[in-house]
């Protein structure tokens, strides 16, 4: 019964067994925990060591420090602006356009299957 549970999943050429992964995870966790232990001795609460450092600028109130969702991945969206603009133009939200896409795919597939 237990054997059935822990059997390895064969994926054609590879394999996957979560138990191996969990063992690895535990080992890495132990290593990290030990390394953390070394640093803990020099960590002092309440000193300037624990305060955030913003290139010498004063820190804002806490609620203004939160990075909003639309500010995330700014560089990526800026670099991919051309494709995002095309896609935004595609997603008009107009139901007639939705049906138009359906008709287009229908037409393309008709041609494709008709040629075969």
């Amino acid at each position, binding site marked *: 019964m237990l054997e*059935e*549970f*822990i*059997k*390895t*999943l*064969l*994926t*054609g*050429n*590879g394999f*996957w*067994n*979560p*138990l191996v*992964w*969990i063992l690895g*995870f535990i080992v890495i966790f132990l290593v990290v925990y030990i390394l953390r232990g070394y640093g803990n001795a020099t960590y002092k609460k309440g000193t300037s060591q624990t305060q955030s450092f913003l290139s010498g600028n004063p820190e804002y109130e*806490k*609620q203004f*420090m*939160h*990075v*909003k*969702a*639309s500010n*995330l*991945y700014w560089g*990526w*969206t800026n670099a*991919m602006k051309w*494709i*995002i603009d095309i*896609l*935004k133009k*595609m*997603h008009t*939200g107009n*139901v007639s*356009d*939705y*049906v138009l*896409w*359906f008709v*287009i*795919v*229908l037409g393309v*597939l*008709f041609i*494709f*299957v*008709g040629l*075969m």
Partner: protein
Amino acid sequence: MSIMDFLLQQSPALIIAIPLLGAFLTPVISRISDKGRNLFVILILAFTAFLVFILAMHVFETGPMTYVFGSTQNVVSNNTVIRILFEVDALSAFMAIIGIIIAFAAAIYSWSFMDNETGLDKYYSLMLLMVVGMLGMVMTGDMFNFFVFLEITSIASCALIAFRTNKANAVAAGFKYIVISTIGALFVLMAIAILYGQYDALNIAKLAQSITFSFADKIALVLLVVALAMKGGIVPMHMWVADAYGRAPASISLILIAATQASLYGVFRVLFTLYGNVITMPSISLGWVMVILGLLTMLIGVIMALIQTDLKRLIAYGAVAELGYIFLAVGTGLTVLTTPENVANIAGYGFEAIKGGIFHIFNDILDIGLLFMVAGALYFATKESSLNKLGGLARNMKYTTVFFLIGLLAVSGIPPLNGFSSKLLIYESIFQLNPILSIIAILASIMLLAIFIKVFQSAFLGPALPQFSHVKEVPKSMLLAMGIVAALIVFIGLFPDLFVTNVVEPAANALINNQEYLQWLTGGI
């Protein structure tokens, strides 16, 4: 005959009939007591789930089961199938299991989630009707019946998407959904009529036996595949998904995912079973079309998800991207199946690809479903769905955060959760078709991780915001529903082989081996 045997024998009919009965009794019970109605719906779904499980176990062991309505005599007379019948093979049972699990979770979730809304008797009736339609679609053995259940699902889900009629966007999303699904369903009916006109049969097995792949059959094939793919939300016909999933109540988005997958089941059933005898004709490579559509679905889904700021809309685009994996994997299987030099490989990577695709249906519904439930929980607690306004909620909602983390890791395919095992199957098999496909699939998966990290960062992490200081953890029923799904995710993630061998493999076998589906016609019932 023991009661269990009786239930098993009648289960295909009862799985449809019991929720249907429940749907019509709900308004009556609703007049007596609200709590009683909620409990009644959960009990109905629990009993249906029990029936689905005993039926599925039977089907996985002994092969397809047919259930004839009306009478068991004269099913085939004069070479015509004259009765409506349900045919449940391993794939149908597989889809029914997911559908009923997710519907059960949604019913538990609704207990607290919908507590403050009005019109709940209609909500629960329609929810049960939606479950009926979904289960009917996956279990029926008759094309016209399939159309009817498709429409039942569309009508019920449209009314539920527009359930919050005081919100303009919800009503608009409902309207878009009903237009799309009606047009899709009408073209499905058109295709059914074409097939019916040629072969004088509506039964899937009978049609599959007599199909010759004439010109009209090609038209019917294209109509069926494109219309059902549109209902399944494949790019570029996916735009309604974002509107519908994003605006429906979270508990409905959950069942909608399963209903969408039932449409994809329709695509697979049409390609592999209905056209199963002729799809192996060498000149046809619809598989590549599916692969390309799958790639597009993945890429456009993730790019659109990355720029969203509304949480539920973002998850909806994530769900679209996940559909791409399924389509890609099954398309790979179909390509291998139909290319003559590769036919020998069907036992090899083609089969692995289909296994991965079908496994991913299950994982996709669970993962995206869990994320939707978390999004609903955030909305329930804060009445806010824009990611730009959320923040620091991990301090107030500890359990929800844990569930979101599980969903996040599972959906982006991080080991050891369930998403990884199915994606590994997909990556390895499509790599052998073309390595570039695999690279794009992994890229899309990484982007999914990035998308949901963004959600995690902006909604859960960060400093405590003063406007959310009063926010409390969501009620227990919602936590219970999320817990059920999360537990399933972890369980399947930890013991993937157990699940693949016992559930996924029979389903994949049933998909590629359509002779099993036709067996009752030649061998008698």
